[in-house]
């Protein structure tokens, strides 16, 4: 960076960051924003200045483009970091809090998995995913059922130990939680999985990551490019690193969990799940 940064440039860079922090504002709807984003792309000094200011605030610039605007993520311990405890909030007991935390985190992961079913969708900038409550719940439950079949085939006793609830497999906890439950006044209970998914989808929508489309399937949403950037550039990597640390490594060859298998009986290709988790 040069030693001479115009004060007005600093103000503009800070304005760009402020716009990036507003989940709903997009360059397409705001001339000033569009202009700043263009400057970010064309002027390396300005881009550097923006990064430096973001860094000082405890933020990381993930991307900046006409479709997404400036996409920012919070560094660890940053003032702007989203805390899962604030999100889960409601639960009282200490041991239950961990269960709720994991379930909520898992649901956010499942929302992304439904939105971008194949690695290619995540890589493709023009891809728009669709998510609804029913799909998310269905995907996780089906995965749970597959794991259950696998456990049954291995003839393991998977019933949790009574004195060590932390060792219980996560899929069992999810499978046990009811999908839907009615409260006394006939509404959807928030601690059912569908209630939790509804909460997650609305929350992410408020963050400008999804757009509500219709009420079909318990609420249908479309993804925004910002969400794609977040999931691709940061979230998936972060979670994957944690799994690597735990020694749970699954290596694929880039085609994802799907394979095409030619059959003898017809020229059609039959798609099937090639690798059972």
């Amino acid at each position: 960076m040069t030693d001479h940064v115009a004060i007005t440039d600093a103000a503009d860079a800070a304005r760009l960051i402020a716009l990036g922090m507003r989940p709903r504002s997009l360059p397409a709807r705001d001339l000033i924003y569009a202009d700043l984003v263009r400057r970010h792309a064309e002027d390396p000094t300005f881009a550097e200045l923006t990064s430096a200011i973001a860094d000082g605030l405890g933020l990381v610039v993930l991307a900046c483009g006409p479709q997404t605007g400036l996409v920012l993520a919070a560094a660890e311990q940053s003032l702007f970091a989203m805390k899962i405890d604030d999100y889960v909030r409601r639960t009282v007991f200490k041991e239950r809090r961990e269960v709720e935390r994991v379930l909520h985190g898992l649901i956010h992961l499942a929302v992304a998995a439904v939105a971008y079913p194949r690695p290619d969708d995540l890589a493709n900038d023009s891809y728009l995913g669709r998510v609804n409550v029913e799909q998310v719940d269905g995907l996780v439950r089906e995965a749970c059922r597959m794991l259950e079949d696998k456990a049954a085939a291995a003839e393991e006793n998977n019933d949790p130990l009574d004195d060590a609830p932390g060792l219980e497999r996560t899929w069992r906890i999810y499978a046990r939680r009811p999908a839907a439950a009615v409260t006394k006044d006939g509404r959807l209970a928030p601690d059912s999985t569908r209630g939790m998914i509804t909460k997650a989808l609305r929350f992410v929508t408020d963050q400008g990551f999804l757009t509500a489309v219709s009420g079909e399937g318990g609420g249908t949403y479309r993804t925004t490019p910002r969400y794609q950037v977040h999931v691709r550039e940061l979230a998936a990597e972060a979670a994957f690193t944690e799994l690597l640390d735990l020694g749970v490594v699954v290596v694929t060859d880039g085609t994802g969990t799907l394979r095409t298998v030619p059959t003898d009986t017809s020229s059609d290709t039959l798609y099937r799940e090639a690798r059972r988790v």
Partner: protein
Amino acid sequence: MPRVTVALMWDTSDGVASGSALIDDGLARRLKALACTGPLHDLDARKTRLEFVDAGVYQMAEIAFQVIDQVTVAMDFDRGANHDEVIARTVPFVAAQAPDRPPTEHEKITRWVLDNLINVGTTDRGFRAVYGAFGHAGAYERRGFDFKLLIEFADPNGEVYLRASDEAINVLIGALDTDVESAQIAAEIKLDNLIRRGKLSDAQAAAQQARYSTVRYAERLRQKLEATRRDVRMVDWETEVPALIEDALTHVVGRYRSETAILANIRQARDEAEDSDRKRKAAHLVEIVEDCINRHTQLQARLLEAGSVFRSEQDRQQFSGPARRATVDLFGQLLAPTLALPLSDAARSTGAFFHAATGLATPVAPRLCDLVRLLLTPTQERDDLIANVPEPDLIPLPDPDVFTEEQWARAEELLEVAEVPRRLSGLLTAARGMDPELPRLVMLRVLYAVSPEIGMALRQGDQTVLLAADDGTRLDDPEFGGADLLVAVAQLTDPAVTGEQTDFQEGEVA
């Protein structure tokens, strides 16, 4: 329980490792089966504690069976009955148990039973039983068995309906741990025989069993098709589903043939019967078998459609070419491995994902001039998603203490009588000198000492106990009347230590 455990321990100590594992398995299965009936027993045990009604006359387990029956019968291919339908269908049965009670009470009782079968009020809306099993190392482990009886599902419109769980169906039809197909054949033969021999009520039970088996077949297919609709790759359409469809089709063809024959048989029985009760039973049986045939037809229609569902879903869920950029496979590399992890490990990856995929939390800093507007804005109501409105279970406040702690301490001090016994009158006078309220407490404690619970004192490990005895002297006191008791402290000796087998009341007082 403890005795069973001992028996198993013997097996392991003899070194019969495989034998113990076998017994263990069967034991666990039986314990689980027993646990499934637990909630039903529990209903009858708890009914006396119901506050809104005197529920003694109701047989709760029977009502529970009726509710489960109604739910199971209403389970068809797409959904089941909702709460109100189930209650409406069960109420006549409840009314029959107590015809003189008001209808609102019958409904309340039914709702209570239904809520308890769902186990409303717990987060998981299910039950947990703890059982013991021997782990790989041969050590005894306590494990939790989680099960549900009635499960709530949401249909695409978001409406919630009920289905019976496998556990409930198993408890209900008593066919624990049996193969669907063989149970069906057995029931079939039984039904045929029974009708020929004219035992109609047994035949009805067997026909109902056949219907439950069909429901279970349909349930399995429904699950597979639903999964296909969501994602073709979740279901094995190469071998598993074609095999299931073929099995189910063979099943439908066979059942249809035999049930048509049975139907003809019962119709004949119905027309020939002279006893009106038997005629009625036969008529009911005709209805059940007809319903069974309807179910088979419904299942068959779905089976024929299954292939085209798969093909159209495959078209809809288009697949594209190879990936252009290496990214993480969210389902295969993140979601599925995380689900397989233990809870405490899963917290790390889900936490990392949540932190990164939810964006920024921008702190709200309200300006003073916005404050009034913020305060006046009504809270946004998320009407379809709200916490349970708690119904507080009110416990009456404990009575306030009559005597203060200080008064208790003083009374304690006074009653530390030396070896020579003291008169109650003397104690009362001494107490009155300290605190006008104190004599009352001293009097009460001395009265208690007339017949103290020595056994209790022994169990608590007390060394001494306060004793009071009446020697015929009258009490002369402005406040109290009665006998002027002699108060003394007695030493306690533990009979287990001293080896004396004496009566507590007599021998323990030194």
